[in-house]
């Protein structure tokens, strides 16, 4: 029972991190209808950039975080302007391939710039684990979870009560209606991408405080975040968080009990199997908007 409780709590904390990563994906889908398969690569590049600034050049951690956020503004705007805007009317396959290609491009650049090594941040979060009854949780996990919840609440408020958030939701539903109401669709797209890349930066840095940074982080965006987003529903912020929790718990509990039988590596496949199941049973996810097809 103790082991199960440990798995459960670790899974919830891990799920918070996954939810954080997935929030970035949901933001982009919510306003432009594009599933950003390059999110994992953004995570990697932003995290490595923060490492270069903090450890390579010796800046204090908070300053490198601010610098990385500034870079992510530029990067988000650049990506939207150069790559995504020409593809606005194109069929969905084009956007899928373009985001995948963008992800590979960033991964290639990361390997060229940082050499494929495994590096670690200096510890900027306290190290002692929390102990809560029989359960031991590294403190970094708890902080990530809290940041995920905080960001989720902020985004909820942003999308519902500020005019920028409302404009984003309007644009995701219908471009013509949004334009007729005076919303500049191109500006909204740019704002969305900037916001999403900033979220990727935060998620990447937090993830980097939990695990050593390696080129495998791009994997995170594809293999872990996409099942979360599909499980929760692609338009839903709450779905990203709930989906993240479910996938996190399923992964840790499943791996904990099944790995010893099969021999390792099962935890990478659990989110994918869950994703296949949800695609077969409820394709739009738990909280997603169901698309009604008419001829």
């Amino acid at each position, binding site marked *: 029972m103790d082991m199960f409780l440990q798995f459960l709590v670790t899974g919830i904390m891990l799920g918070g991190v996954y939810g954080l990563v997935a929030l970035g994906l949901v933001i982009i889908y919510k306003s432009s209808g594009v*599933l950003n398969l390059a999110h994992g690569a953004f995570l990697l590049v932003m995290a490595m950039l923060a490492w270069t600034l903090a450890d390579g050049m010796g800046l204090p951690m908070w300053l490198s975080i601010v610098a990385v956020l500034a870079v992510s503004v530029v990067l988000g705007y650049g990506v939207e302007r*150069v*790559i995504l805007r*020409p*593809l606005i009317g*194109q069929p*969905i*396959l*084009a956007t*899928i*391939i*373009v985001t*995948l*290609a*963008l992800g*590979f*491009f960033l*991964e*290639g*650049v990361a*390997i*060229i710039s940082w*050499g*494929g090594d495994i590096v670690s941040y200096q510890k900027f979060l306290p190290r002692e684990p929390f102990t809560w009854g029989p359960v031991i949780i590294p403190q970094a996990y708890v902080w990530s979870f809290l940041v995920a919840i905080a960001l989720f609440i902020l985004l909820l408020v942003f999308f519902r009560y500020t005019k920028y958030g409302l404009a984003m939701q309007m644009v995701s539903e219908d471009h013509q209606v949004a334009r007729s109401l005076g919303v500049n669709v191109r500006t909204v797209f740019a704002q969305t991408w900037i916001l999403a890349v900033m979220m990727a930066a935060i998620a990447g840095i937090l993830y980097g405080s939990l695990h050593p940074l390696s080129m495998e982080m791009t994997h995170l965006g*594809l*293999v872990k975040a*996409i*099942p979360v987003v*599909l499980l929760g529903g692609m338009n839903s912020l709450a779905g990203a968080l709930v989906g993240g929790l479910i996938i996190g718990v399923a992964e840790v509990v499943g791996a904990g009990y099944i790995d010893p039988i*099969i*021999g390792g*590596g099962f935890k*990478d*496949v659990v989110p*994918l*199997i869950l*994703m*296949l199941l949800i*695609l*077969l049973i409820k*394709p739009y996810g738990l909280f997603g908007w169901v698309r009604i*097809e008419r*001829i």
Partner: protein
Amino acid sequence: MRPTGTYDTSYARDMAIVRTPLQWGLLVVFFAALIVYPHFSGQYWLSIATLTGITLIAVFGLHITTGLCGQINLGQSAFMAVGAYTSAILTANLGAEWFLLALPFAGIMAGVTGLIFGAPSLRVKELYLAMATLASQFIIVYMITRMGFLTGGALGFRVPWASIGGLVFDTPVEIYYLVAGIAVIVGLAARNITRSRVGRAFIAIRDNDLAAAVMGVNIYGYKLLAFFTGCFFAGIAGALWAHYLTYLNPDQFRLVDSVWMLGMLIIGGMGSTLGAVMGTVFIELLDVLTYYISPALSAAFPQLPTNVTWAVSLVVFSIAVIIFLVFEPRGLSHRWGIFKASYRLWPYGY
């Protein structure tokens, strides 16, 4: 845009792929060039040609699934792996002479796997289907790695040379002829599917599957058939890959390879068989180019890491795909069509 002066006097002429004597002549020259290619190509370019041929077979399969029928398949590399391991296990355990049987069986196994992982296409479309096939890419490779007792897992699997009758394909030239022959047959099959009833059903489903269903096309059956055919060709390509490299490892079949093949299809032009050929050749030549410029790059920038060749080819490939998607989404075959139309109409402008 027809060549000038051609008109159809029979149904067969209307459906013909090759219309004029000039086109027949060019076709014969092309086959002659294929046959004599090994004699003046050198070892390296022969291996490039063989690899291009193997990839081309898999891309033809992808052309049928994604280009003709519109079902996005992000897991083609994993289906190649299924075919590769099937043929490898059969020939290793039963003997290399079984290759003639192992090859179609590899295709069938890959096709059946394609049916299983293509089943979501009955419920979901487009983006969600792409995600389901993405999952299949990882799950299949994971299962191959785990089933070490059969496949050798991460340690790899030694594959015997293929042999048909008494002829053992163990020199590069013989393998090239095998691959080239099968690639030509598969290309002809893919082109023929386009002008058959099945092909018309695929195209109808791609353009608007609800309308196709209303017209009486059995979309469920044809979607599954598209997946089966595409993965069948992938399985054959995988089997040839196995017997060419004679060493299999799950790391040879990554997501990057699947996306690479989709990229080839898109760069070449999605709806046409010629596009598949042009895209594959273009990307392979790009790969050769990065192979040549990487040493120069490493010499010019000494602080680059040693595995820069891989990263540079990744960067070059992604830039090529992005540029094509932004500037010419209909691909090289569309440009080629414009060129043909312009010289057929010359000196008129339109």
